[in-house]
């Protein structure tokens, strides 16, 4: 999300880069502009609410992943370990805290402002709570607002949970924001943001659903992380965000019309050999290498669960100005890792069916229990029911010590062999949809 790297640039990418650089510029100028800053998390975030208060959001996870991409995470993690953070906990937390301890210089080499409010809104992962409990001690002057999102244990949005979230918003979160912002929430501004969110969400879904085409015009994982950048972070609900997705959708339509495959750092994929679905976040420290391991084999990801971690639109959910707080609540509840394992499996199976995938890859992240605990059970279940090959690999998000190129390559080589054999046994017409 919000990545910067040297790949073939399209207009949408240039646009995203500009949006990010403007955002970080605005962050670096808060002393002059007097804007307030809210630190918060990606999954189920309340960007529209933050924007409606005219505040600037900062996402510590994004800083961590950016540090991973920029090869700085190893250093930050060591810094955090030096002050007592154990080796085997979520590396995002340590990377963020390490960065803060080394002066809080963000991904654009500009100083990140301290938070005026920590919005402890967490969905699908308990570590977020621990993370902000720690940050709260490091930023004692920040206000802290807790928004607890219950788990979708029964595989449905429970009305009691929606009520609970709305009650928290009205009785606790919004009053704290009003105090920090020094102004009341404008229902009109919030509703406008939510309308724009819905437009962008439709466009994003067009992009993701384009993977049904053969060849797929997009890579729903490695490309997908760029596509979700604006919508899952600071921009959802803004006109710029809508503009980005309009541009992106135009590009994807062009590729569909010309039967072009996705663009990789080494150019467009010319022959789509394998269509894959992937479960789990990517590795950031060796992102390009990792991607190459797939595109070198002509493998394209047509479905990815990670790109639903900040919000899931596949079953029709859209933010709505008609019920602002209710739709924010439903959004938070629906994020991928807030769904139970049978629901996670159902989504993967939907990708496999809808996009006619040949195999599933699980990238199990060493320090992320939220995703990883349960993946082996999911793998067995899908293998048994779908009979498709599953490749299981292990990496980490931003801890470079846990990326072993040769191990991953060995495992993937056998996985691709399996896919190849299966193809020979069951040749399928690669029809262009």
């Amino acid at each position, binding site marked *: 999300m919000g990545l910067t790297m040297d790949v073939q640039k399209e207009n949408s990418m240039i646009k995203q880069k500009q949006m990010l650089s403007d955002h970080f510029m605005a962050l670096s100028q808060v002393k002059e502009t007097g804007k307030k800053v809210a630190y918060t998390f990606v999954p189920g975030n309340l960007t529209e609410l933050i924007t409606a208060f005219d505040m600037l959001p900062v996402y510590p996870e994004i800083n961590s992943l950016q540090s991973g991409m920029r090869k700085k995470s190893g250093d930050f993690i060591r810094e955090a370990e030096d*002050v*007592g*953070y*154990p080796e*085997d*906990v*979520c590396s995002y*937390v340590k990377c963020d805290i390490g960065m803060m301890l080394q002066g809080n210089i963000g991904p654009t080499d500009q100083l990140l402002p301290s938070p005026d409010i920590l919005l*402890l809104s967490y969905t699908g*992962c*308990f*570590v977020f*709570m*621990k*993370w902000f*409990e*720690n940050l709260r*001690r490091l930023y004692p002057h920040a206000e802290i607002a*807790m928004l*607890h999102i*219950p*788990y979708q*244990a*029964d595989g449905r949005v429970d009305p*009691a*949970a929606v*009520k*609970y979230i709305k*009650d*928290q918003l009205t*009785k*606790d979160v919004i009053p704290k924001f009003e105090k920090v912002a020094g102004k009341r929430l404008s229902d009109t501004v919030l509703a406008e943001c939510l309308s724009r969110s819905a437009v962008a969400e439709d466009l994003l879904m067009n992009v993701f659903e384009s993977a049904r085409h053969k060849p797929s015009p997009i890579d729903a994982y490695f490309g997908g992380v760029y596509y979700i950048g604006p919508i899952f972070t600071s921009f959802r609900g803004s006109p710029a965000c809508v503009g980005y997705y309009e541009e992106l959708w135009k590009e994807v339509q062009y590729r569909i019309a010309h039967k072009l495959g996705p663009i990789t750092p080494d150019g467009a994929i010319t022959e789509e050999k394998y269509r894959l679905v992937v479960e789990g976040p990517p590795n950031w420290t060796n992102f390009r290498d990792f991607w190459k391991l797939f595109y070198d084999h002509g493998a394209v990801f047509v479905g990815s669960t990670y790109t639903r971690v900040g919000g899931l639109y596949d079953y029709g959910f859209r933010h709505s100005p008609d019920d602002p707080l209710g739709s924010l609540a439903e959004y938070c509840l629906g994020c991928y890792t807030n769904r*139970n*394992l*049978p629901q*996670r*499996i159902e989504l993967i199976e939907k990708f496999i069916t809808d996009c006619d995938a040949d195999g599933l890859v699980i990238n*199990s992240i*060493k*320090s992320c*229990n*939220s995703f*990883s*605990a*349960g*993946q*082996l*059970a*999911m793998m067995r*279940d899908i293998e048994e029911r779908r009979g498709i090959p599953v490749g299981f690999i*292990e990496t980490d998000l931003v801890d470079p010590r846990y990326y072993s190129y040769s191990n991953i390559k060995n495992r993937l080589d056998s996985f691709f062999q399996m896919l190849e054999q299966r193809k020979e046994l069951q040749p399928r017409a690669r029809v262009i949809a």
Partner: protein
Amino acid sequence: MMNSVADAMVRHQQTDLAASLDQAKGLFNDLSFAYVRDWKGQNPSRRVIGFLPIYIPREIIHAHGMLPVGLFGAGDRIPVVKGDAYFQSYICHLPRTVIEMALNGNLDAFDGFIFPAICDVIRNLSGIFQLKFNAKLIRYLDFPQNFDPEVGGVFYRTALRQLSEDLARLNGVAGDVAALNHSISLYNENRRLVKDLSDFRAASPHKVSAVEYYLILRAGQTLTIEDHNAFVRRVMPQLAERDALPEDKIRVVVSGSFCEQPPLGLIRTIENAGCYIVEDDFQLGLQWMGDPIPDDTADPLAALVDAYLTKSTYSSAVYDGDHPKEEQLVAQVRERRADGVIFCAPSFCDPALLDRPLLEKAMDRSHIRHISFQYHENLGQFHVVKEQAGTFADMIKLWD
């Protein structure tokens, strides 16, 4: 003559004590849950509900005529074969022995399982149970992290009502107001007894070893509440009668082991290395409520909700809001007149390990000495712990 009668009495009590402790040890070791199967066999309406750490309101299960049984993994008592195929090496150990037991049939007598919201591993373990054992009742209990009665309280009440309805469907026992009040009173009694025992241990740690204390409490995760109350009532005077002299040991609080349990050998090692454990969080769920819960109200569910919101102990699984956990640990150290803190947490345990730096810092600020190590439930070698704990004890004895 008098002396020999007194001696005989002491001998008799000690034999009783040995038998009681043996019983606790037997329960701990019995992974086939014979006691539980026995209890269930006595009446066709009886149901057994397993629950994962740390806390659940066992009163509700009891009020439905069921037996709540705490599942804390199997420690080092079974080899993990199937469990390793379910959990990657970088996930804590507890869920793999739980799944191992479930797959091996050790939990066949259980009719349902409740997974409290404490961490991502327990949360996803509930999903694995949904996939593998969906013929049984599988429930996830989400505790509110908002403590406003009108917000978190309302949500929690709905969750408890739903749980109660689910349980009622299992055996047709509705669990009315009188039944719930009665259950609350029995659990209040248990909390009082456990508190007495814990105060006794803190006052006379030479009379009850850390392992014995642990086993007595741990029995409470299997026995019916009536049996455990009787058990603790019986064992307390027997411990008090013990003829033992205090040794030159330091007093420590052990913190961080609230879920996956340390092996008995590790607890013993800490003690043998020169430390009296005067407070620990091994069986935190039994001590979750600091004060008794009203047991004579017209709305006992409301009493349970209020207890969660206002009487819960601090823990790594609960947002500490305006009551920083550091302060609570410092208060505990002071209250127990402890010389130091041993942070002892399972490997890969995010909740415990992410609390550690801030707790350590608070101990430094309060000039409380501390050491830290990690374990897993089937750890077999304790040399390192022995050395660390021994050095810690020596250092404190030398300088304080």
